[in-house]
Structure formats: structure tokens, C-alpha cells
């Protein structure tokens, strides 16, 4: 988002220039003989001092502490000191400071400040108070409460498209699949069907049915595929469901269609190739098992090494990430707990915390 950042920079420079300008103006103002806060007068303090010394001598004389002779001597000493200082003052007058010198000085201040800041500063870098940071907000926001609030509003204003759009994925996340499907249906009613919306609806229905493909879900997926000839997600779902239902021929077509739409590097490519192979082999999987075994072996060797002899925070991060990707959240939580106890200072765990907390893991053992 270049917009807000640019705006931040502009405000920063505005404040910086304003500060410099105010400082220079105050100094100029003082230099022109009128002062903002620091008026100065001719010095009289020294005279005060000698008056007080004199008063002290007279008080001592009056109290009988010193004799009149001594008092005369002390006064004479004082008078000589005053005369000497006055003579010194006489030859000390030099010209006043010129306005040109002042202006040059102020220009120097401004130049020096901006040049130094250019070297050291990070203009436009905003603050990141902990409470305002997204990963923390996600951790702290109570999803259930938020969804309940939005639903209450939607009950009053059922035509609030934005409300439905926000609440639908949240309902999926909360596991309320039937309500989520209803929400997606409502969005489609309000804004018209798109391939993505039909797919999201089908996904909610599939999840509701516990992975058993329902006729309605399949119908929505087919609508989605028909609505958009380049929609990948709906085709992948169709292919997977058809494979599961044993309709290998049609499944193979959808696998191929999805693969044909791939641009390369998508995370689902490998799974789709395996699916196609299974469909073409009429349901017999040869490679997938081996591959899953390989991944599992890798993760378990990393995990046993880390659990036994510990490792760097990066290795722990890799392990937690692997479990999250494999969908094994309880193992991920265990690994995360171990990593936290190995690295109790959150300061060391920057990336790990972000990954773990955004996957819904809990930070145990830090708060007493």
C-alpha cells in the first residue's frame, strides 16, 4: 500500500521542517533584541553581591565582632576590588553580533540536522505498537464474539452484502459449515453467482457432509466450472470428489483440465499429478504412498533429532511449519511448546511465533 506510507512520510517531513522553522524563528526573534521566553537585563547581580558584603561588615562592626579599624580595612579592601573590576569591565566591550552571522548559524543548524537525519533516520517508518499489530490482533480478537455481533446485525439487515462477505469465511473457520453455506447462498442471491462463490458454497457443503460429496455440492461445483472456463479450484474439487466416488474417467478429465490451467509452481501440482495417475490407473495409487512415506520420514527424523539434542530456532521453525502444512496441529503444538521452552525469550523467536500463532497454535509456558 504505497498510499498511507507516502502520507506518513509527508507528515513526518512536514513536522520536521516545522520544528526546524520554529526553532530558527525563535532564535532570530531573540537575536533581533526581543525574546520569547528568555529576557535579559543589564547585570546588577555583582553590585548586589558587594552591597551584601558591605552590609555584612557593618553588621559585624555593630555586633562588636570586629573593631572599627578592622572594619575600615575591610571596606578599603572591598573598594579596591570594586575599582579593579570596573577597570576590567571598561576594556571589554566588543561589537554586537551581526544579523548575517545569526542567519549563517541558523542555516548551519538546519543543514546539519537534515543531513544527519538523512544518514541516520528512517523517514516514513511508522510505529508498530504491539496492540495494533495484525498478528497480535488476530491472536487477541475473540472470533466467536465478533461473529455473533455481525450475525445480530445481519438478522436486522439481511441485505448487508458486506456483512455476509465478512461472516461467511469466519463461520467456516468456526466450524459452523451449514450456516456458512447459508451465508454463501445469501451472497450469491444478493450479488449474483460467480465461480468462486459457487465453489466456496460447495466447499462449505462438503465440509458439512464430512467429506462425503453431496449431490448439491457437486451441482454447485459443476455450475462454477461452467461459469468460468479457467476456474481451477472448482475443477480440483470436482476431480478429487469424482476420484473418491470411483468415477475415474470423468475425474481424469477434470485433473487434466486443472493441470492444463496451471502456470507452474502451484502448491497443488504434485497432488493433481498423483490424482491423475490414480484416476488413469483406475484407482490404484502407486506414487502417492511412497511420497507421503518419504515426507513423513523426513519430518520424523528432524523431529527426533530436535527432541533429543535440540537445535537452532530455525530448525524448530521448520519442524513446526512442516506439521502445520501436514495438518497435524497437535504435533505442531507439541513441537512449538518444546521450541518455546528451548527459546524462552520471545525476542529470539520472531518468525516462529508469527507462523505458529497465525496457524492457531497457542503460546504456552510464557505467561505464568
Amino acid at each position: 500500500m504505497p498510499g498511507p506510507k507516502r502520507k506518513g512520510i509527508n507528515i513526518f517531513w512536514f513536522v520536521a521542517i516545522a520544528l526546524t522553522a520554529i526553532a530558527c524563528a525563535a532564535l532570530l526573534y531573540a537575536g533581533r533584541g526581543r525574546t520569547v521566553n528568555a529576557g535579559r537585563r543589564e547585570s546588577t547581580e555583582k553590585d548586589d553581591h558587594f552591597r551584601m558584603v558591605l552590609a555584612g561588615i557593618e553588621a559585624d562592626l555593630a555586633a562588636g565582632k570586629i573593631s572599627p579599624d578592622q572594619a575600615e580595612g575591610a571596606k578599603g579592601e572591598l573598594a579596591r576590588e570594586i575599582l579593579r573590576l570596573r577597570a576590567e569591565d571598561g576594556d571589554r566591550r566588543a561589537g554586537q553580533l551581526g544579523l548575517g552571522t545569526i542567519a549563517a548559524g541558523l542555516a548551519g543548524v538546519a543543514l546539519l540536522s537534515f543531513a544527519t537525519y538523512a544518514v541516520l533516520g528512517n523517514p516514513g517508518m511508522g510505529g508498530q505498537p504491539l496492540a495494533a499489530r495484525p498478528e497480535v490482533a488476530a491472536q487477541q480478537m475473540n472470533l466467536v464474539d465478533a461473529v455473533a455481533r455481525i450475525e445480530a446485525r445481519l438478522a436486522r439487515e439481511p441485505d448487508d452484502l458486506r456483512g455476509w462477505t465478512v461472516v461467511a469465511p469466519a463461520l467456516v473457520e468456526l466450524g459452523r459449515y451449514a450456516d456458512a453455506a447459508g451465508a454463501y447462498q445469501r451472497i450469491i442471491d444478493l450479488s449474483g453467482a460467480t465461480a468462486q462463490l459457487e465453489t466456496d458454497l460447495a466447499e462449505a457443503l462438503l465440509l458439512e457432509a464430512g467429506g462425503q460429496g453431496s449431490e448439491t455440492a457437486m451441482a454447485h461445483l459443476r455450475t462454477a466450472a461452467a461459469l468460468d472456463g479457467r476456474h481451477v479450484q472448482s475443477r480440483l474439487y470436482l476431480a478429487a470428489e469424482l476420484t473418491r466416488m470411483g468415477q475415474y474417467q470423468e475425474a481424469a478429465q477434470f485433473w487434466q483440465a486443472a493441470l492444463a490451467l496451471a502456470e507452474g509452481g502451484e502448491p497443488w501440482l504434485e497432488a493433481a499429478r498423483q490424482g491423475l495417475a490414480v484416476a488413469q490407473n483406475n484407482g490404484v495409487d502407486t506414487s502417492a504412498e511412497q511420497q507421503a512415506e518419504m515426507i513423513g520420514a523426513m519430518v520424523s527424523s528432524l523431529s527426533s533429532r530436535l527432541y533429543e539434542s535440540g537445535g537452532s530456532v530455525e530448525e524448530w521453525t521448520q519442524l513446526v511449519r512442516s506439521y502445520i502444512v501436514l495438518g497435524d496441529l497437535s504435533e505442531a503444538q507439541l513441537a512449538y511448546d518444546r521450541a518455546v521452552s528451548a527459546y524462552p525469550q520471545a525476542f529470539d523467536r520472531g518468525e516462529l511465533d508469527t507462523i505458529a500463532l497465525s496457524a492457531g497454535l497457542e503460546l504456552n509456558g510464557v505467561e505464568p
Partner: protein
Amino acid sequence: MTIEIGHFSLILASALALVSAFGGLVLWRRGERLAAILAQSALLQFLLVGIAFAALVQAFVVSDFSLALAANNSHSLKPLIYKISGVWGNHEGSLVLWILILVLFGALVAAFGRRLPDDLFNLVQGTQSLLVAAFGAFTLFTSNPFERLTQPPLEGADLNPVLQDIGLAIHPPLLYAGYVGFSICFSFAIAALVSGRIDQAWARWVRPWTMLSWIFLTLGIAMGSYWAYYELGWGGWWFWDPVENASFMPWLAGTALLHSALVMEKRNALKIWTIFLSIITFSLSLLGTFLVRSGVLTSVHTFASDPTRGLVILTMLAVLIGGAFLLFAMRASALRQGGLFAPISREGALILNNLFLATAIGAILVGTLYPLLLDALVGTSISVGAPFFDLTFGALMAPLLLVLPFGPLLPWKRADLVAAGQRLMGAAALAVFLTILISALGGISISLAPVGLLLGFWVLFGSFAEIIERARIGRIPARESVRRLMGLPRSIWATALGHMGLGLTVLGIVSVTAWETELVTTLNPGESAELAGYEITFEDFAQVPGPNYMADTGIFAVTAPGGQVAHLHAERRSYVASGMPTTEAAIETYGLSQLYLQLGEPLADTHVLRVWHKPYILLIWIGTLVMSGAGVLSLTDRRLRFGAPKQARRHSIEAAE
């Protein structure tokens, strides 16, 4: 964005200071207009550094870990007060606090020093600005507190648990106010050397600033001592730790400066020595602050240190202090010497005071630096411990305390020692009587304790001799005496109180050193132990969570000899973020004495308990409070007040001529 505004403000303030330093030190003869600009600049520097400091505080309070300083030293679970005090619980932040106090003093001189002669004012502000520019640049280029992290961690590394205490909120600001306040005396000394003009009025201007800094330093050191006493968990209140010495040396020098400036103000004597002391005092303050930061000394006070930083600091100190002494060497001979006086006189007594204090500084300086030098040059590592300091410092202080009560009783110029001695007979008799009484009651043992007590009481009672003398108590009707007491100048009261505070501190030190008792034992809940007539029962043991730590808490019931029962909680805390343990001792006060309980390491099935009985230990700190109070009283004296209003009674100076 506030962080970046703060960063810019600190840079702007340093740039302003650099240009002001040039203006003040080079163009100082250019009169009133320059003075007005420098005064304005001093106020602006204070405002700008204030903005920078506020930006840091704000980042700590909202746990903005994109500020590297906050990420390294704060923690989101920390209580608010420790988030704030955490700003200066580290190298970079403490530098900003240091500079903030420096510019605060500069602004105070600008606000209250309006009646100073222009050229003196220009030189003073120029020197102050030079210090601000030097330390501002050091901060920005080698220890920038405004460094940012593009990938901020989710949690900070937390502050050292030992520092998570109210002490950190109070001790460093007070101590720094004391250290930095002496920069004003330093600047006045440089101004006197550059302008070649030094007179009694100079001493009159310097004295309030010396007094103010001295008060802060006294309180800061006392606070630090009490903090160490209750937080470090083994009941010691002074360790002769290099850093403590580093703060004690400027205090001794500042005390000497207070007394010598008095001679200069009243008698126009000791001028060059006073200038020298002003430079020494601030140099020792710099040494105190930055020797620690350079990493040359390692102790509790050393935050993360790195060698380049240390090198820069040492170079800066060498240039600043060396430059000042070079200037002193070049100009001191050109200064006019002061008046002469007899050895037995108020001046003479004050010189004796300065002599002992200066020697004490020398001894401590040697004891602190000698091991370092030896290590650096020969590679032998030795440690100069408390016995060395106790012995040398004690030996130097005993004669000082012995002659102290005489000082205020001696008149200026020429005095009669016998007459002063007669007036102190009462105090001496009282001190001897009390010492014999206490020794008799406490059982006689061959030790230095009675001598210490004698000195303490002697100073305590002797300090009032002048007041009793002036009020003619016992020689004229009581009502008349009270009237005279009320009429005494506050400076007389301040002198008496200040010396009395010292007496109290001495008594506290002697009492704790001589009569402290200690008990180390193992206890289980339900069992009891006894020390110095106090019965200590281990009532219960529990694990209690705190905001950012877990605590093993021991609950004790203490029955005093008088029968009253107190319930104490002693804790061992383990801080979550750092895993560091701390001990929180339980301290119960009985009058001026304290019982100090420390829960030790847990053993297999029992707990180690350490108990100390510290008789009259509070006198140590009460004495320092009395001393500081005396300083405040002296500041309110008409003769020392900032920008004193003109006298009502006008004596014309011409009459004297």
C-alpha cells in the same frame, strides 16, 4: 512516526548545540544579542531533547518493538512503571536521560542567570552547548537509541530483573541530576579561565549550582545504597564497588567545592583552587558516568558494552578533561591570587577540610584505577577490596571529623583556637559520656567501635555549638534565646544541620559495623530460629505467580523482644522472559534498626534462611536525608537564592569608597 520525530528532535538539538557552542566559545565578546540567542537556544535544546525522550517513553509504553531499544530492553507484560524506567535501564537510553538533564540545567541557567554579565553568560552557555553537542553526537553515531527493526519481534527481551524495581525509577535520575549539575560549575570554571575574570561574585553564582547538584548527588548515592541494600539480597549497603566509588568521588569533590567556594565568596581567597575543584568535580562525574559505559569497569552497572564505543568514550573524556586542564595550566598563572589569612581561621579550617577530602578522593581513585592499570600494563589481575578502602578512607575521615566542629566556630581571617575549644567543651563532654555509657551497657570489648561512636557524637553535638553560642542559650532568658534562634540566618542552620546529618550517618555506620549480628540456618515451615532476641517462625511456603515472574514465597512471623508480631514475606523470583532469579528480602523496621530476612536456595527438603539484625542502620540514610535537607535550607537562604531580589535596605557602595 513519533519515534522518527523524536530522532529528528535529538539531531536538531545536537546541531543547535554545536552551533551554539561555536557562537558561545568563539564570539563570546559579542555581547547581549548573542546572549539572548544562546539563552533561547538553551531553552530550545531542552524542549527538543524533551520531545526525543518522550518519544522513547511512548514507544516503551505501547511496546513498539520496531524500536530496537524497546525490543532489547522491554517486555509487553512488564508493569507500566518498569516500562517507563526501562527507557534508561540501558546504555543508549541512559545517555538520552543524561543529555536531557544536561540541557535542563542549561535551560535553568538561561532562565535564572539573566543577571549574569553577558560575556560570562555566553561562555557558560557555550561550554554547556559543547557538552551537549559532544554527547549528542556520541549518542547518535555510536549508540543511537532510535535504531529501528524492520522485522520487529513479537516480544521484547525484557529488562534485567534486578533493575525491575522502583529504585531504577528514582536512583539514576537523581544521580544523573547530581553528576550533570556539576557541568554548570565546570562551565563557569571554563568561562572564568577563558575570560580571565574571576572574583567573589563568580563564587556567588557558582555556589547555588554546586549546592543543587550536591543535594541531588547525595540523594542519588543514598538511594542507590538503600536500593542495593534491599534488592541485592545480602544486606550490604556499601560495597566499594568501582561504580559506587565513581559516584562517591564526585561527591567528595563536590563537598570540597562547596566549602572552598564559601572561602572564595567570603574572603576572595582560594580562587585558583576553587576553579581547579570545579573542573575536577565534573571530570570525576564524567569518569563516573562513562568509565562504566566504556566497559573498562565491569560490575552490576555495566550494560552491554562494545570496544569501539569504549574507545570513543575514552577519547572524548580525554579531550574534554584534558582540554580543561590544559586551559587551566595555561591561564591559572594569569589569574589574580586571593587574599592571605592566618592558618588558625575559618579559612584555615576549610582548607584542612579540602585537604582531607582531596586526599580521600586520591586514595579512592588509586584503589579503583590501580587494578585496571596493573591489569592493562602488566597483565596481573589483583582486586582492591573493602579492607583497603575501609582502612584508608576511615583513617582519612577520622581527623576530618575530629576538627569538623571547630570550623563553624572559628571567625574568618584570624581565630583563637582555645576560645573555640572552650565553646565545644559541652559537646565533647556529652559525647564522651554517651560513648562510655553505651560501651558500659553493651559490654566493653577491644575494638574501634567506641572511637567511632565518640567521633559520631562529637560531630553531632559539636555541630550545634555555633547555634547555641549565637543564641546564647543558658546565658540569657529563654525567650530571648528563642528570638535569637529564629533570627539566625538560614545558612547557619544549614551548616549545623548538614554537619549533624554527617554525625548521624557516622553513628549509623559505626553501629551497624560493630554490632550487626547474622544467622544462617536451615528451616522448614513450622520451625523457629532466634537472633538478637527476635524469634523468627517459618509459617508457610508457597509458589505465587507475579505479572512476569514466578515467586517462591516464604511467610515468616517475627516476634520482637517487646512482644509485637510482624508477618514478613521473603521471595525468590524467577523471571519468565530471561529465566533470571532475584531475591526479594523481607525487611522489618524496629525503630531505627532493621531485621533483614533472605530466603536462600531451596535444598532437598528444607530451606536456607539468612537473617541479619542491623542496629540503627536507618541512621545512615536518615543522616544523608538531613544533609540534603540542610542543602535545600541553604538554597532558600536569601544570600544564595537564584536571582535574589534587590535588598530592601540599600547601602550605597559609594559610601565604602
